[in-house]
């Protein structure tokens, strides 16, 4: 019985992978005669990247691009495996789980890249000229304005914890967040939340657990559910996705917390020995360039380090100036995040706290 179960699980995993490899692969053929093919492995949703890829092809029309999308943990596993076997995975890795990219670079799986564009990268978003942060994405609260009365809209982490405690019945099962067992980004954000303020995070975790918070694998799902009104509040959503969803669903509102806001920079890394490391570098340079950043601001990631918040977002005028922003530094400290004992322990604690977790049926097995 158990054996059969395992076989089923393995089969399921294989299909998931096959599915990922087939369906999440998009090819952008070169506008002009092709001289090279750039393969990007990414955890970023295609719609966000599409404007950037297409604009890049305007500047470099002879390159066709294969864009393959994975979940953060899947991508990390694939890349680590590829590095161990010295079979580089694609020409460029883009991941929101910078801790994983950093671990990869620390293990010697990255190629150093220097260019005038990389000099523009903030010091906290560059490690060894191997891992670069190319976005600026605050972790925000989202809520459905039909379900959450204006008076109750939480603007700090404490307010959120208090709200859940005070209106427990109303919000029970109506708060969504990442399932950090599945989502690397969720784990990264949760870990950094815990580092920020142990007490506040403990309280929040406890409140969410008591309110039977819903854990989901991905930002998209939570945003979808909040937009539909199935969930009322989403916690620690990536600002870019949230803003994109808010534009499509007017009921979906965004709050940038005023006590502290974690800011994540999506990372990029050129694998060691990449077949077309030059193209990877070219695309990376494009992402970091004025032009790429401008396209990202208007079409893909909306938030910038220096600029003001996009219209319609509730929060401090300017993240950087308000001092609220807590960028997750791309540096060795992320190795502590990636430590397997640490991770296991943290996730166990988290899972224990969220004992009442209302997770999808297939995950509960």
């Amino acid at each position, binding site marked *: 019985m158990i054996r059969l179960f395992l076989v089923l699980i393995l089969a399921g995993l294989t299909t998931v992978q096959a599915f990922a490899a087939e369906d999440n692969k998009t090819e952008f053929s070169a506008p002009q005669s092709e001289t090279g093919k750039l393969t990007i492995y990414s955890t970023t949703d295609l719609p966000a990247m599409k404007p950037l890829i297409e604009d890049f092809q305007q500047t470099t029309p002879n390159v066709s691009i294969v864009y393959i999308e994975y979940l953060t943990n899947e991508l990390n596993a694939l890349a680590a495996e590829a590095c161990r076997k010295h079979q580089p995975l694609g020409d460029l890795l883009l991941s929101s789980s910078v801790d994983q990219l950093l671990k990869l670079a*620390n*293990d010697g799986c990255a190629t150093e890249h220097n260019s005038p564009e990389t000099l523009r990268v903030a010091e906290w978003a560059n490690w060894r000229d191997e891992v670069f942060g190319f976005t600026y994405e605050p972790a925000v609260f989202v809520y459905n304005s039909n379900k959450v009365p204006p008076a109750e809209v939480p603007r700090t982490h404490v307010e959120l914890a208090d709200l859940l405690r005070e209106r427990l019945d109303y919000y029970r099962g109506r708060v969504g967040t990442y399932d950090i067992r599945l989502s690397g980004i969720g784990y990264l954000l949760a870990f950094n939340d815990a580092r920020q303020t142990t007490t506040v995070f403990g309280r929040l975790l406890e409140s969410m657990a008591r309110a039977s918070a819903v854990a989901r694998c991905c930002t998209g799902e939570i945003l979808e559910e909040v937009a539909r009104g199935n969930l009322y509040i989403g916690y620690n959503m990536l600002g870019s996705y949230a803003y994109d969803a808010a534009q499509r669903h007017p009921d979906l509102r965004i709050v940038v917390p005023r006590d502290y806001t974690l800011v994540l920079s999506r990372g990029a890394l050129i694998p060691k020995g990449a077949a077309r490391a030059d193209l990877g570098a070219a695309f990376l340079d494009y992402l970091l360039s004025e032009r790429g950043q401008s396209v990202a601001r208007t079409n893909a990631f909306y938030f910038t380090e220096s600029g003001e918040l996009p219209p319609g977002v509730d929060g401090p005028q300017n993240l950087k100036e308000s001092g609220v922003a807590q960028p997750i530094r791309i540096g*060795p400290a992320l190795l*502590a995040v990636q430590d397997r*004992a*640490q991770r296991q*322990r943290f996730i166990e604690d988290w899972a224990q706290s969220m004992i009442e977790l209302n997770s999808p049926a297939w995950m509960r097995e």
Partner: protein
Amino acid sequence: MHPEVARKQPSLFARLARRISFVLGIGAALLVTAAWYYAETAANKAYDRLLVGAALQMAESLSVEDGILTARLPTSAFELLGLADRDRIFYRVIDTHGQTLTGYDDLKTPTPLERAQDVLNVEEGFYKEEPVRIAHATRVLADPAVSGRAYVIVAQTNEARLALTRELTLRATILVFVMSLLAFAGAMLAIRYALQPVERLGTEVRSRDPHDLTPVSVDVPRELDPFVGSINHFMGRLNERVDLLQRFIADAAHQIRTPLTALTAQIDLLGAGRLDKAGRQHFDRVKERTSELSRLTNQLLSHAMVIHRADSVQLEPVSLVDVARRAYRAAIPITVDPDIVISFEAPDERPIILGDAVSLREAIVNVIDNALRHGTDQRLEVRVRASAMQGFVEVEDDGPGIPPESWARATQRFATSKSHEGSSGLGFAIAQEVAKAHGGTLSFNARGRKGFTVVLTVPLYKGEVK
């Protein structure tokens, strides 16, 4: 003197400069090497502290929870290591059973952990083919459930250490370089200053009138005293010799000429009137030999004189025409055969040459005298000419001249040829000597339609005439 000895040696300054720069170069190289060594030590020390600190923090974070050894690696430990912002970090936590609790399974210390005691001992090693510094920390656990030793190994690549070492070394190198330059410049100034007396002495000696044999009087440092002393001693001796020679020639001139004159006087007094035919023949021979002796004596003394004067008399601007005219007057006896047409021709301009009038006159007198005695038949012409750069004194006679094959011999001392029997041959030698001393030449023009010409050529003086 051997040519090797005469080969040009580099200057004292260049020698000293070369040696000092050599020594400074070696010194600088040693200092830079030392600086590198110290910088490396300092960089290692600095970053090793971080490494040990991180290892200790990690070891401190080990705890036993529910009977299980648990590692909650503190982020601060990694942040500490992150101060070396480009370095990769590897770590491994080993539990009491020697099993890897977390981190890189294959990370090892170069010396086995059981033997390593000193926690502060950081070692060199390799991990993932990269040179790393490896530190470890030991945690002794005495929990009933878990007891024994747990270890934390932390390794870090060397980039920050190298960067710091390089930076420190570079700064030290710049300092060393600047100091070396300063030292070199200082040394050069000092040498230049120290060599100044030598230069001064050199200038003094060089700018001296070559005929000035008085002692050199320049203030020189003590070290140069023997040198100056030698110069002065040598000068003194040379001066003595010159004086001696001068005195000797002067004495010889007077002492030989006076009796010789007396002899000719006696011959003159004797007269030939009262002698018989045979006696007259002998008398004529005595007279002839006496005059030959006189002439030879004069030429020998004259030769000695011009040689001596060439070395001892400073040349002055003189008019070539005046010198030639005086020589012409002195050389042509009033008692010369009246049938000979003798003339002197000079240009309107006055060619000036740098010369010794006495020697030049002697030279021209000898050339004219030679022509008169051995060349001239009916005609003797003395001409002074000048071209743009040279002055010429030409003595032309209508005699047979000297055949070209004998020209080279004619200027040698006592060279006689058949056609010039009785000639002492010193006349041309004297003229040649003088011409050479004046940077000129003595040459012959082959007998043409008019006659045979001896030409004394000297360069013209283009400077100011006082």
